[in-house]
């Protein structure tokens, strides 16, 4: 049994699931990955002190899992169904009911037991997103937005990833947008403007030192101290984690900045404010700098760069990024939106 479905590849899983479900379930084709990311105010940075992830620093370059889908649907006036389950049996039943109704379903899954991923990528990360669009014999047909092609999981494998345990446990979570009336260009325009304003708030107006642009500066200062505080080997592992989180599967910190740059360009087609095109270039520059910083970090964790000056350089890259992103969001804040 197979639902009519067109697979779409994306740079990031949640963007991809959002766009793909809007297209396949509602027939909405104007919303691209960058538009979903921007309307969902996806760009973020946060460094959570005292929390360790796999023994290293806890850093995120994007907004909390689930919000991009939620906000994008809300902006477009699309009702969302989202369910969690305590029993795997109930979870599978609900999934089958949706498929039987001809509707593909988004699922939050853990990556550790995701058999089609290479072992090197399989950590206990529980906020990956996939779409299930059919079942043949014992195999569920899977559209994983970061993959070029569709794939499949046996019912046992799917149950295992839907009921992965630990931080952000998916609890069998499934979600989909419901059919709705016509989505107007005006709704998209408003969604874009609201999305930008909210992202301005998240990046430059959250009080305290750990979130948004301030968080980048905070991390930059920490990085400069890592060599003395942790020793070269551990500091290298911390930097590798920073890069892994930045360039995680699908995309990461650098990648998110490029998606935001693409968003501002595409937003211009709906909201013809020319500043958007200029500010887009700043995000391209920020993304490029994140990549430069990653190259610098790699020099350190591969043991080629070892001096304090190398750590200072790494921190300075991040301070420069903080400046670029702060300027960019300030410019976005100053835009006089057309009525």
């Amino acid at each position, binding site marked *: 049994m197979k639902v009519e479905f067109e697979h779409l590849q994306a740079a990031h899983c949640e963007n991809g699931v959002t766009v793909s479900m809007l297209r396949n379930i509602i027939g909405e084709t104007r919303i691209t990955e960058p538009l979903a990311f921007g309307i969902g105010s996806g760009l973020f940075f946060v460094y959570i002190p005292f929390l360790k992830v796999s023994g290293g620093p806890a850093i995120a370059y994007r907004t909390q899992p689930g919000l991009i889908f939620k906000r994008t649907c809300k902006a477009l006036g699309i009702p969302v169904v989202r369910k969690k389950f305590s029993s795997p049996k109930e979870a599978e039943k609900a999934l089958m009911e949706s498929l039987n109704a001809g509707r593909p379903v988004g699922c939050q899954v853990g990556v550790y037991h995701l058999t089609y991923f290479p072992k090197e990528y399989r950590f206990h990360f529980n906020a990956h997103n996939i779409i299930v669009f059919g079942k043949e014999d014992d195999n569920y047909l899977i559209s994983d937005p970061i993959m070029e092609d569709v794939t499949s999981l046996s019912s046992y494998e799917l149950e295992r990833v839907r009921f992965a345990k630990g931080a952000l446990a998916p609890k069998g979570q499934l979600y989909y947008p419901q059919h709705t009336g016509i989505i107007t260009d005006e709704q998209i325009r408003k969604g874009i403007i609201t999305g930008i304003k909210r992202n301005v708030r998240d990046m430059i107006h959250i009080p305290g030192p750990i979130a948004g642009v301030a968080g980048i500066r905070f991390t930059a200062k920490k990085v400069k101290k890592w060599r003395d505080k942790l020793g070269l080997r551990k500091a290298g592992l911390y930097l590798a984690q920073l890069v892994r989180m930045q*360039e995680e599967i699908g*995309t990461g910190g650098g990648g998110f900045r490029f998606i935001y*740059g693409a968003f501002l360009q595409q937003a211009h087609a709906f909201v013809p404010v020319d500043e958007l095109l200029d500010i887009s270039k700043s995000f391209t520059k920020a993304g490029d700098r994140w990549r430069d910083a990653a190259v610098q970090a790699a020099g350190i964790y591969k043991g080629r760069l070892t001096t304090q000056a190398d750590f200072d350089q790494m921190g300075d890259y991040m301070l420069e990024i903080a400046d670029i992103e702060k300027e960019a969001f300030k410019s976005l804040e100053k835009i006089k939106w057309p009525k």
Partner: protein
Amino acid sequence: MKKSDIPQDPSALGRITKELQYVVDEQGNYVTDLSNGWEVKASALDITWQDIDNQTKEAKEKVLRNEASPLLYFMQLRIMDLPTLAAYTGFWKWKIKRHLRPDVFRKLSEKKLAKYAEAFDVSVDELKTMNVHEG
């Protein structure tokens, strides 16, 4: 990033799929293109796994020296920290800490051992002996 700069390095993910990336073309417009992988990211994963492998070896030696129970080895092997293992087994964290002691571990009931074995994806026998055969 310019379209012409998109990295095409060998990577673990590159073996199964290319990744979509947003890049700028010659006219300055954002377009998408596929990347096979990036050496900087691949090496970040490499050194992370080298570290995990080293810690797993160290854990095994510790168990063989009778300084910890096999749980320590399997927690490293399956990269499960205390909260994750607690979530998979349903045991309290402080209980697991106790079970990490070799003398306490030796007295565990078959039922408790089976819970750990399931969480680690091994048989109870493999759990006790640390002899795991995986493809």
